């Protein structure tokens, strides 16, 4: 059974360093935006959070495919942790986006902003993942159904963005286009470092949670073997998969 603890210390240090460097660049080095001023700096947190959370959702979907293909329950756990971590990052992205919208457009919520709206829809979709897991009792079926959900929702993410974007006029600055965008050098560098930092944070937290869950499961197995205790379900309610 893998422990997930391997290399965790090195990864944590790397994550911390990258985030510190990113924040230093954001606050002390990168020039202020000419039209928006200081508030534009939230861009370096908001956009990476949103991108990483969306990638995390898709990642959870891919892990779910692996779960259904291999039947290995550990993939279900990985998918679960990825999705719930993405949900936390996504809420962070939504809140920072809302703050930015208030500062630069004057409203906490702007409907004619396709990226914000699609993001909300995606979050609404994934917010049902945990209640859904809760309401299926049989653990084997819970894993299987949750994976089906994760795959469907993973396919839904890009389609939803397409539909919502077409439905509205552009307000969001299109800084990250496929043709290279119009971000000046220092900003691009700072953004890249922030993105890497947030992505590393996601991976680190994911690994930590996997390690914790894994340790708890191993502990339970050992106790069961030693004490012969059959009913050692954790007292708290959790929708996390059990192995």
């Amino acid at each position, binding site marked *: 059974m893998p422990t997930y603890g391997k290399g965790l210390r090195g990864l944590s240090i790397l994550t911390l360093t990258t985030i510190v460097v990113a924040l230093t660049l954001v606050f002390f080095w990168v020039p202020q935006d000419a039209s928006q001023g200081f508030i534009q700096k939230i861009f370096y947190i908001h956009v990476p959070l949103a991108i990483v959370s969306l990638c995390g959702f898709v990642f959870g979907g891919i892990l779910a495919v692996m779960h259904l293909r291999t039947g290995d329950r550990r993939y279900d756990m990985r998918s679960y942790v990825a999705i719930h971590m993405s949900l936390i990052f996504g809420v962070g992205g939504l809140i920072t986006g809302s703050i930015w919208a208030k500062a630069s457009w004057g409203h906490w919520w702007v409907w004619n902003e396709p990226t914000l709206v699609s993001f909300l829809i995606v979050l609404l979709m994934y917010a049902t993942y945990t*209640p859904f897991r809760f*309401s299926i*009792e049989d653990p084997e079926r819970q894993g*299987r*159904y949750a994976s*089906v959900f994760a*795959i469907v929702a993973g396919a*839904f993410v890009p389609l939803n963005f397409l*539909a919502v974007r077409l*439905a509205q006029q552009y307000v969001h600055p299109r800084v990250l286009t496929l043709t290279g965008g119009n971000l000046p050098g220092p900003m691009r560098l700072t953004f890249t470092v922030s993105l890497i930092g947030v992505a590393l944070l996601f991976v680190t937290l994911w690994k930590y949670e996997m390690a914790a869950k894994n340790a708890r499961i191993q502990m339970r197995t050992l106790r069961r073997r030693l004490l012969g205790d059959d009913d050692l379900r954790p007292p708290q309610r959790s929708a996390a998969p059990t192995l």
Partner: protein
Amino acid sequence: MKTALAILRKDLLLELRTLETLPAMALFSITTFVIFHFGLNRPTVEGQTAAGVLTVTLLFAGILGVNRLFVAEREQGGFDAFLLAPVDRSAMLLAKATALFLFLAVLEVIAVPAFGLLLLGPSLGPPLPSLIAVLALADLGIAVIGTLVSALAVQTRARDVIGPVIGLPLLIPALIATARAIGPLLGSGGPAPLPGKWLLILALYDVVFALVAYAVFDFLLED
């Protein structure tokens, strides 16, 4: 294919004999029009508002059908019997999606004229052919996604809640496209040409989710 037809026949026969779902859907939609009339405080609606009212009503009426779709299978052991039979499991998806599509079509045959009678300002006649095309594509999307969600939700403890809560966000893009495509058709100055962009999105959405549903549906029927 033969299996799918057999299940479909069973479902339609069941509906015809018990009349459990369709009358409820139709009544629900007409009641919703009445509520919209008072909620909006307007004798007639047109344009995008009319499209919104129609889309939302049909969607929520459709959700009633989605909730009922697999209940008989679960409560009366249809799933077990189906799993025992040596048949392709995708037949169930095909049959149920077709049944739901037919339910929605019948619902619209009742609800759309009722809408034209009760709420719609401009005449329903001129935009009707385009409207049918849009609604057919929308029904296809609701049928496929509804079947998938219904199959997901029917095994859960709180299935009446879980179904709509998962289904609605999944259907939002299809509904955006439907409402936007219908909007210009119901304008007060007579119908504008059908916006092809939205039909395309709707069709794309239908195709993608049909493929996804086909790929994952088997896993919902394992035991």
